[in-house]
């Protein structure tokens, strides 16, 4: 029951992130929105594991959380390089 409620809240948060991703006036806004959406996805994966009662997918969440950092760092590098020109 609590897991379902949390999943609904996470879905709403992802929807808000997608809105920011679509209208975000600047590129950094969009990058932060994407970063937050992936973090919420990790939470959703953990909740789905809880609901299914099996820890098999938890590794996916852990790897996603570690890789997400790479995407944000690469975007930051791209923005920095673009600003220099």
């Amino acid at each position, binding site marked *: 029951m609590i897991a379902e409620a949390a999943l609904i809240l996470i879905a709403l948060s992802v929807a808000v992130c997608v809105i920011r991703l679509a209208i975000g006036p600047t590129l950094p806004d969009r990058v932060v929105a994407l970063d937050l959406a992936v973090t919420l996805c990790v939470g959703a994966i953990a909740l789905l594991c809880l609901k299914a009662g099996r820890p098999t997918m938890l590794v996916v969440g852990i790897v996603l959380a570690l890789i997400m950092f*790479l995407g944000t760092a690469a975007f930051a*590098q791209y923005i920095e390089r673009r600003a220099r020109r």
Partner: protein
Amino acid sequence: MNSLVLRTAARFLLPLLLVFSVVLLLQGHNEPGGGFVGGLVSASAFTLYAVAFGRDAALRAVGINLQVLAGLGVTIAILSGVPALVLSEPFLTGHWATVPIPGIGDVKIGTPLLFDIGVYCTVWGVALIMVLNLAEE
């Protein structure tokens, strides 16, 4: 990029991601994971290192020529099919052996694992070649 936070984080994340890529490789036969995903994770670990320290530092961290790594992977994958040929079965038929390892227990080791290790090395090398060449500008 010249950021102390990124450099420190990359230095911690590289070994962590490599450990997880091996975990994905080893659990791949029965659970989510496998050689392909493990290779991608380890390639992204070195991509992160390249973003933080530069392309040449990442190449030095890998320690082996990437093209040699990819070729080695394909060779290992092909060799994993040879035992079946020797036993006059179809190529790449899986063979398993249970090896007792002290402290861990009985571990099943077979040719599919060898094939996965080959895929791991190939994906690792090829993905890293592509990403680092794109990052070169």
